[in-house]
């Protein structure tokens, strides 16, 4: 475990770069809507990562610009994209079979809360006035071999988002394996949560602020 105390917390782009660096060479990856889409900007060509988008495209390329924009070539966030060489199109049932069937290596998601057991809450705030909309979140959370989550460690009100028990409605149970936050990167296993690195804050301070005890990290 490394405490990076000569700097402040990670920026969103720095978090995205860390996630990108941890994606295995040749992996099939789905980047969730929102903050995780920034990971694509940090993937290196030699990683040869193949991006999946659940609306039916494997081999998704970057955002389309100018004359590349095609209303029939979009990602799950309905943003126009391009197709990379080697891309394939398929229908929604096949797309989710790919996901649910464990064929994707990594999925990167945002979250409202993650529990110490790796429970994920990212689809609904539980606000009775909010309109529920789950999309593919539940399949993304259970389907990939590894689920990485990116979020700030604390909410705007200062409350921790890594918690003993999620209070927001769950997306999936015990699914998160790695948690990337502005303050620290955590590994979540059946043994508990281990901080792999901290940024601008010590591990002891984070334990105090979250009210959690972190396990010793396995040799990284």
């Amino acid at each position, binding site marked *: 475990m490394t405490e990076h105390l000569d700097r402040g917390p990670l920026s969103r782009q720095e978090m995205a770069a860390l996630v990108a660096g941890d994606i295995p060479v040749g992996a099939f990856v789905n980047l969730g809507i929102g903050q995780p*889409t920034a990971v694509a900007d940090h993937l290196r060509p030699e990683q040869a990562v193949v991006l999946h*988008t*659940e*609306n*039916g*495209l494997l081999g998704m390329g970057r*955002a389309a*610009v100018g004359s590349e*924009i*095609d*209303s*029939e*070539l*979009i*990602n799950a966030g*309905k*943003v*126009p994209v391009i*197709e990379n060489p080697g891309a394939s*199109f*398929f*229908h*929604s*049932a096949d*797309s*989710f*079979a790919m*996901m*649910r069937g464990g064929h994707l290596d990594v999925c990167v998601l945002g979250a409202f809360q993650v529990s110490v057991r790796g*429970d994920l809450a990212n689809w609904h705030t539980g606000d009775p*006035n*909010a*309109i*529920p*909309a*789950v*999309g*593919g*979140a*539940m*399949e993304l959370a*259970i*389907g990939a071999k590894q689920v990485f989550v990116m979020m700030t460690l604390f909410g705007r009100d200062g409350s921790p988002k890594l918690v003993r028990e999620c209070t927001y*409605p*769950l*997306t*999936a*149970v015990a699914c998160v394996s790695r948690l990337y936050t502005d303050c620290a990167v955590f590994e979540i296993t059946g043994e508990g949560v281990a901080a792999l690195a901290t940024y601008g804050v010590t591990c002891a301070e984070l334990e105090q602020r979250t009210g959690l005890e972190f396990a010793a990290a396995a040799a990284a």
Partner: protein
Amino acid sequence: MSTLVFDADEAVAGIRDGATVLIGGFGYAGQPIELIDALRRTGVRDLTVINNNAGNGDIGLAALLRDGHVSRIICSFPRQDDSWVFDDLYRAGQVELEVVPQGNLAERIRAGGAGIGAFFSPTGVGTGLTAGREQRTIEGRDYVLEYPLRGDFALIKAHRADEAGNLVYRKTARNFNPVMATAAAVTIAQVEAIVETGGLDPETIVTPGIYIDRVVEVSSPETGPPPAPR
């Protein structure tokens, strides 16, 4: 047998009040807007619509909702930046919503078309969306029982058809259209061009004509406003 029809109004004839209608598309991509417009013109009421979303902007499915044709919608992702029509109706209690995870939605429709009675899905185990539902542990993993979805009608969009009703799609406009094509008593397809039988390579056909009842050519379909840049 597939029948080529002259226009969208003729294509949607026979859809009655209270029908369940599967409508293809992911946002605007693959949404059969001209068939939906024709459905609106029939004045039909009390529809149950199954779509991935709940309408975008003010056209297509959003216009069908706005004009009061739909009493219930089954979808995965109603709330979007441009779902103001649905949002207002939902908050006013004028449309009933059933939210289904997107992969369960697709697989339930696939099951409906494939003659499967029900299936066990790992999606949503331990969440509020599956609370109280029948569960089973199979080889150490927990699953929830899911039932198939079928429609009285399916309105779908493809790129091209041949006169036998075989369909090919284009890029991510495929999405829910091929599975919905299989899961309705009557499936109606709009396509940009109809070619003569034999004019499509059989190796490239995604939806065989057996699933298609009516085909209408809409050569320059509405595709929605230009997608917003990222």
